[in-house]
């Protein structure tokens, strides 16, 4: 039976069919749906872990006990999980262990666009790269077999245009793994990586790579040669294959399903069969570097194909047509100069609790160390209330470190903000550091009670598991106090005056402090009934009162817009225009009501 599945859904399906027993992940675009979908299968234990390192370790524990395990993350998540990952390579597995990592070329939703294929050589672990949903299912399934056969974790590398593309998949049934579930004390020399044992495993890892190379060469079914017109032969993989095949269908292809180790003999055979070889790959010249190092004469690769951003059929046609067909691509004149149209960047939702909080930070003129999540949108003008952001948890350490340099001059001028999920992911360590080593940073936990940006996933602070079952809930206040923070406050961000006062007091203090927002669940979290906390469901701006001062526009609310019509208020004040509230979008958060200096915003009759 064929069904249309998203790439991520197909990875989950492949794992389920392979008899996976444990699945762990921390959400991250574009990988999040893998675990969300896997959690819908009753036979599998699944979890949202606090972070990717924990996911990796839980999955490996499951594998060592004989269960097949899947761990999923976005590309930057593998940085967090790198510590266990690099040594799991030495320890190996008992039940098959698959690490699914999803890259984001083009940085649709990411802070960088690192190429996860680099982990494969670095970690000495094989990597499979599917191109579409069918391959997501097939490659994930076979990855479990490879893992057990060669006693290694296996990477399955996806990316935005694989994870978030839908295509038909032939479904299969689930087969339970026959591996015995037990722990064995006799395996200490394989499981305890103290130097004397790890040195032995180091040798085993090299031996394993040799065996895997033979496998890639002889047995792996998804390295495929398609010999058509031999004038040009493309070596490519993943979605780059699909783009290239679409643009240049008549030529020959070596499509690699396994990126590491590479099948050198097969590559040699391909060079023998075609006249010119062009390598097409997204991001780094990974295949090109390796294939050139093998001594082959590659005609084109990164000299023509961009290393930055994602590839598309349009880009492939533009950069390769001349070299492949001898003809320049036909360019059609633009009907409209679309680059000049108003952009539509993502924005905080109407009523979002982050908006009043950022407004307060802006009023206080703080240097805000930010973090990864919806609150990253606080950097966008006109809110412009974030001044630093690298990775999850980094704002807490960053603000504390900066305070060590600017000293007392910085009191009242610096704070860190991060979300509830991000704080649990990696904010606790730096908070402890600030207390232990005498920093004065103020950490604001913007608690919207969910992992929001990635699409509403649970975490240890929400009270629910991935399967929606009730779970113990982390108490942020108690947690902060337990690491030694003496000043822990809560604020209702929708009360602007109170919020500004509390933040002002805490950032001025020469000690570490924590502020937690309350009454602030995500607007999209239906179970929290976010709109019910507002007194009125909608406001309007009295046309004859608005002075056109534009202060309400500066909070970048999607419900408020400017009408550029000159006029006069009922008090005879001249104005160049006025603001209006779009009733379809307003949810009644009343931030604008509190900042309007002329009392022009009133509840809309209900």
């Amino acid at each position, binding site marked *: 039976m*064929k069904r*249309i599945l998203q790439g991520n859904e197909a990875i989950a399906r492949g794992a389920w069919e392979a008899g996976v027993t444990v699945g762990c992940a921390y959400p991250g*675009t*574009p990988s*999040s*749906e893998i675990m969300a979908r896997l959690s819908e299968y009753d036979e599998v234990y699944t979890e949202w872990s606090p972070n990717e390192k924990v996911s990796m370790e839980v999955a490996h524990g499951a594998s060592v006990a004989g269960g097949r395990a899947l761990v999923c993350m976005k590309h930057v998540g593998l940085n967090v999980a790198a510590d266990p990952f690099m040594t799991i390579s030495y320890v190996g597995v008992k039940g098959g262990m698959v690490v699914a990592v999803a890259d984001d070329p083009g940085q*649709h*939703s990411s802070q960088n666009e690192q190429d996860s294929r680099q982990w494969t050589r670095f970690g000495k672990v094989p990597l499979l790269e599917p191109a*579409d949903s069918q391959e997501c299912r097939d490659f994930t399934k076979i990855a479990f077999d490879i893992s057990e056969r060669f006693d290694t974790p296996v990477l399955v590398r996806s990316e*935005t*245009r694989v994870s*978030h*593309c*839908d*295509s*038909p998949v032939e479904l299969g049934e689930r087969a339970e793994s026959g591996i015995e579930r037990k722990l064995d004390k006799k395996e200490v020399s394989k499981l305890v990586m103290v130097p004397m044992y790890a040195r032995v495993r180091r040798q085993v890892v090299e031996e394993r790579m040799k065996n895997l190379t033979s496998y890639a060469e002889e047995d792996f079914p998804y390295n495929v040669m398609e010999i058509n017109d031999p004038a040009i032969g493309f070596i490519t993989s993943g*979605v780059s294959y*699909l*783009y290239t*095949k*679409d*643009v240049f*269908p008549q030529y020959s292809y070596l499509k690699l399903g396994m990126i590491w180790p590479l099948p050198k003999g097969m590559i040699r055979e391909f060079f023998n069969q075609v006249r010119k070889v062009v390598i097409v790959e997204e991001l780094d010249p990974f295949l090109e570097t390796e294939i050139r190092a093998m001594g082959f004469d590659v005609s084109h690769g990164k000299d023509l194909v961009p290393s930055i951003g994602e590839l*598309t*059929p*349009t880009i492939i*046609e533009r950069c390769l047509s001349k070299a492949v067909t001898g003809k320049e691509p036909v360019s*059609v004149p*633009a*009907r*409209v100069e*679309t680059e000049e*149209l*108003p*952009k*539509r*960047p*993502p*924005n*905080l*939702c109407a009523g979002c609790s982050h908006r009043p909080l950022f407004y307060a930070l802006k009023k206080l003129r703080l240097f805000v160390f930010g973090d990864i999540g*919806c609150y*990253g*949108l606080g950097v*966008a003008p*006109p809110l412009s209330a974030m001044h630093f952001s690298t990775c999850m948890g980094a704002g807490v350490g960053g603000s504390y470190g900066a305070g060590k340099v600017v000293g007392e001059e910085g009191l009242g001028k610096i704070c860190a903000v991060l979300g509830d999920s991000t704080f649990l992911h990696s904010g606790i360590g730096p908070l402890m550091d600030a207390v232990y080593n005498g920093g004065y940073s103020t950490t604001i936990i913007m608690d919207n009670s969910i992992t929001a*940006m*990635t*699409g509403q996933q649970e975490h240890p602070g929400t009270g629910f598991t991935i399967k929606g079952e009730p779970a113990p809930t982390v108490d942020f206040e108690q947690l902060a106090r337990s690491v030694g923070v003496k000043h822990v406050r809560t604020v209702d961000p929708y009360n602007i005056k109170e919020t500004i006062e509390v933040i002002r007091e805490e950032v001025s203090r020469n000690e570490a402090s924590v502020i937690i927002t309350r009454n602030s669940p995500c607007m999209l979290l239906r179970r929290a009934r976010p709109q019910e906390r507002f007194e009125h469901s909608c406001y309007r701006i009295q046309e004859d009162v608005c002075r056109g001062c*534009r202060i309400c*526009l500066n909070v*970048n609310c*999607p419900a*408020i*817009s*400017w009408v*550029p019509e000159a006029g006069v208020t009922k008090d005879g004040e001249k104005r160049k*225009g006025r603001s209006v509230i*779009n009733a*379809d979008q307003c949810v009644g958060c009343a931030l604008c009501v509190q900042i309007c200096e002329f009392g022009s915003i009133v509840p809309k009759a209900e």
Partner: protein
Amino acid sequence: MSDNGETKNIFLSGVGGQGTILASNILGQVLLEAGCDVKKAEVHGMAQRGGDVTTHFRYGKKVYSPLIKEGDADFLVSFELLEALRYINWVKPEGKIILNNHTILPPAVNLGKMEYPADIEETFKKHFKENVWMVNGRDIARELGYIQVANVVLIGALSNFFPDLEAGQWIDVLKDILPSRLHEINVQAFQEGRDVIKAPNA
């Protein structure tokens, strides 16, 4: 399908939250059941927070790339007017345009820094002549009492361009994908959309 086995491209655009994903899911299921290979691509995550969203939808005998090549779209189905104009260069000269008569102001316009482009329908008609259809998807959905079904109204309009497929095939898929409490309203929305435009034999 009467497409001689070649791959056809439908480009959908709109604003996060307008329901482009459900619309493309319906398309995908209908065409799969009609015996086609299908691929579709969309971006989730940060791009959804009120930002512009696009879906590349392709179908045919065998589809490779999930992304459409610029200038190769056979259809542009847009849920918002500015988001239609943004992708005007993606359409083939003989391509067909279905516009939802709906405007959502982007931040720069809200702030009074830029103007919302005027005469978008006319711009399309200048380039695509009679191949432009304006649908009041939002008004129809509002009259039906459920503003969210504007996406299904547009799918109803688009369904006219698949003469080999009967309304029942679309409706069966709608019922298959949606929970039963939403069946009636969505079937109505589909029918209204289907009746709104008189399509020539596509």
